[in-house]
């Protein structure tokens, strides 16, 4: 058991998957000699060769389309999109092909591919390097969308994603690539792809989040505890499909819920979770479901990005509000 960062856990999972299964291929811009701009693929090309670790030309549509073709042929491609702001050219391939190949051919062909990309802001990067548009993908039938919030979950969920017989978009929280450290046992154990993680149990209010925001959410839970508010913290982790039961069970217990995400508010995935509760958890609700999210603005450039990303104090304030509600 070594203590590793989240990005190192990603690297461990990739190396493990590649050595376990010769059909796993990694492709993307700068994933080879350079080992990825975040070092997620470091060492892989040296170890598995340039045929299995491919430095793709500068074309995101191509990267996703190549994955579809390779996957239909039985390979297990793991494509990397350098930043989520550059994933949009892949959406046509994801929506019109990757997510549909199995259904379109009624099982004759399938698309076991993974598309990895850094998610979210907070690293003072240039424009387009801090996107969190996960809901655009989580709306697509036939896709899976996964986002870990710790090295352990990054390792186990990425292995599961690569082994899954269907297309998975794997979002990696850039802000905690290195900030998040944890013990990871490189034992090849995968985690389930549709179970949410209850990171902290509590009776008074349910805090639901995913990705990098899980950290601020946990900090908020600590602060709330100081005031005697016992918050339950859920890391949704898999957004498509997502674990409705864990959410409903928690809200049934606490009767109060705050959803936290970095993405813009309107039509964000938090809306889906709130809608679920309004539909199937209403009777247990003791207070309005509150969303603490990024604003409905473009993610500002570094000088102001910290004002855009939900802060611990915004989360605690919201939690206090719903707890005081009656």
């Amino acid at each position, binding site marked *: 058991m070594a203590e590793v960062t989240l990005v190192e856990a990603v690297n461990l999972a990739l190396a493990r998957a590649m050595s376990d299964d010769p059909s796993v291929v990694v492709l993307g811009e700068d994933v080879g000699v350079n080992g990825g701009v975040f070092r997620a693929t470091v060492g892989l090309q040296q170890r598995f060769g340039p045929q299995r670790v491919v430095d793709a030309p500068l074309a995101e549509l191509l990267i996703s389309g190549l994955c579809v073709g390779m996957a239909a042929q039985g390979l297990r491609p793991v494509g990397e999109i350098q930043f989520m702001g550059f994933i949009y050219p892949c959406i046509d391939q994801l929506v019109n092909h990757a997510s549909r190949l199995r259904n*379109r*051919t009624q099982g004759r062909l399938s698309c076991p591919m993974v598309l990895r990309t850094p998610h979210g802001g907070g690293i003072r990067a240039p424009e387009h390097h801090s996107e969190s548009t996960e809901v655009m993908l989580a709306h697509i039938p036939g896709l899976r969308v996964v986002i870990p919030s710790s090295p352990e979950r990054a390792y186990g969920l990425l292995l599961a994603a690569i082994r899954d017989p*269907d297309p998975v978009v794997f979002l990696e929280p850039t802000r905690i690539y290195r900030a998040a450290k944890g013990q990871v046992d490189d034992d090849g154990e995968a985690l389930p792809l549709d179970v949410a993680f209850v990171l902290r149990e509590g009776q008074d209010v349910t805090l639901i989040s995913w990705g990098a925001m899980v950290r601020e959410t946990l900090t908020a839970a600590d602060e709330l505890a100081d005031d005697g508010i016992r918050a339950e913290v859920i890391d949704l982790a898999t957004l498509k499909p997502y674990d409705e039961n864990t959410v409903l069970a928690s809200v049934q217990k606490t009767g109060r819920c705050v959803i936290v995400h970095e993405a813009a508010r309107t039509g964000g995935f938090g809306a889906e979770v709130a809608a679920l509760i309004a539909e199937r958890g209403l009777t247990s609700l003791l207070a309005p479901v509150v969303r603490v999210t990024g604003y409905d603005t473009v993610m500002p450039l570094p000088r102001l990005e910290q004002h855009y990303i939900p802060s611990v104090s915004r989360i605690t304030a919201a939690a206090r509000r719903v707890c005081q509600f009656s």
Partner: protein
Amino acid sequence: MAEPAITDEELPVIARFEVRRRSYLAPDGTILRRLPQFASDTSALLSLYRGMVLTRAFDTKAVSLQRTGRLGTYAVSLGQEAVSIGIASAMREEDVLLPSYRDNAALLWRGVKMEETLLYWGGDERGNHWSGPAHDFPFCIPVGSHAPHAAGVGYAFVLRKQPRVAVCLFGEGATSKGDVWEAMNFAGIYKLPVVFVANNNQWAISVPLKLQTASETLAQKAIAAGFIGEQVDGNDVIAMRAAAEEAIVEARAGKGPRFIEAVTYRLGDHTTADDAGRYRPPEEVQAHWKEEPIARLRSYLVSQNAWGKVEEERLAAECQQLIEVAIERYLATSPRPPETIFDHLYAELPAAYAAQRRELKDASHG
């Protein structure tokens, strides 16, 4: 601003390129140049002829099914039969075909049953779960978006050291899509065994070639990706088969991708949902009827005493017969249960959607 001191012509040339054109039969069926070897085998030519005739007969029936509300939107290959047939005839079973919505002929040639094709265009996904090669791709409807798949398939062959080739068919309109461009560029870099074929039927629905691109030929687009593009008379099935054979043989031998521009003409409407009379003059269509591939090959076969009225009638009857049986089978296929729309969404339906499937089942059976 000052005019440049020297003219282009004084600058040294650092690269030169050529585009060649392949054709063997003149529109009247006479020979333009020595035929490729396979053409000395009359039975080979007869099967190409049969494939084109069957295609046209099938298309005709499909359209009348659509007109009578028994089939969905359908795209005939009228006048372009030589493209799909010529290409398909040069492929091996283990090669992978990536067809566009207009390539029914290529799939029929490769073993997809006519009733399966009808089932798909009749609005039933099961039509794609066909008797043809299990590894072939389904019809691609988003124009050009399957080109990157062809590159991915070709890459898999290289990685696994398999002597197989991916063949991607699309229309000239597709060459305007970045998808095709990115795929060709990648195939060039890794010398992938991929053959890209543009069916240049001059029209993209109502958009004529001159509004699609300013390049004199489509073949020259391959120059941008660093490999060979050839223009072929797409109404000459012998030329199509010869060009396909050469490209596929080269690709299989590891010599890299090829691009084939098949120059032909869309004699029919774009699809049954289109009325070409709105945007192109009948004279233009008439003129192109003189070049169509079936009459052309027939003239040649007749001139070789390999074909005549009797054979023509026998073939027509045979085709009608096959098609009618297929149509009966198609019409006899009842729709699948509604809730099965969940059954191939994922390898295993996630628990989250089980309730929806139940709801649909109850709703539709209740």
